[in-house]
């Protein structure tokens, strides 16, 4: 397992840089992870990130874009605006979770 330094935090990550330890995450780290990929978190971002954090331990896997949209009540269009390009992966990264594996 690899350790990398984000800001002042030492975190365990996979080869791509996704956090591998759920409990190493904090909202402060989330802000720093977001900054690494050029995103400044607003309340709208946090709504999605907090949903992902809460959903992961219950489901055992990272929520897909559709799951975030339907269960957190955030339109897909908005998720693409908040996390441009690859929204599902970017959300997972900021939330300190593995990439989602679901197809839809």
């Amino acid at each position, binding site marked *: 397992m*690899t350790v*990398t*330094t*984000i800001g002042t935090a030492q975190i365990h*990550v996979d*080869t*791509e*840089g*996704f956090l591998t330890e759920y409990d190493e995450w904090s909202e402060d780290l989330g802000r720093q992870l977001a900054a*690494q*990929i*050029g995103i400044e978190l607003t309340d709208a971002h946090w709504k999605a990130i907090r949903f992902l954090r809460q959903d992961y331990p219950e489901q055992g896997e990272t929520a*897909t*874009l*559709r*799951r975030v*949209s339907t269960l957190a009540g955030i*339109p*897909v*269009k908005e998720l*693409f605006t908040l996390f*441009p*390009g*690859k*929204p*599902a*992966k*970017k959300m997972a*990264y900021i939330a300190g979770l593995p990439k989602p594996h*679901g*197809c*839809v």
Partner: protein
Amino acid sequence: MTTTTTQPAPAIVPDFGDSAPTGRKLAIICSKGNLDMAYPGLILANAALGEGVQVDLFFTFWGFDMITKSRMGELKFTMLGNTATHMPQGLGGLPGMTAMATHQMRKQIQDIGVPDVPEFLAQIVDSGGHLWACRMSADMMHLDETDLYDAVEGIISAADFIEKTEGAQLLFI
């Protein structure tokens, strides 16, 4: 005397492709109107959009059912001619069997959280996908824009679609 400085290792951060967009494009031709054959195109389109790929879908021939308002929510699955169900082919021809098989498949799709066709198309459009209808199919079936799903951007010829998707990777389903 020499001095050594220890450079901190750069942080490991995933590459989301923002620094060097690839301009990747995908063109998907949907030519089937069976429930089971509607999904591959929709799922791949959705996956590609989630990866930042530009996606254009072209609906032609039987695939027109996927975007025809009166039919898009009523696609069916039949066991007939499909050996992958591993059921005797004769069963598929019994009255009510297509309805039953369709019901079963819809339930399986719903159970894994995958939307039905109209909702899936809406998600694709919200994700930035483009829907196009085939001119020849519209003429053959005597349908116009008013008969089609609202988010369809236009009824265009095959040549127009080829022109629009220049440089794209192409899937025919």
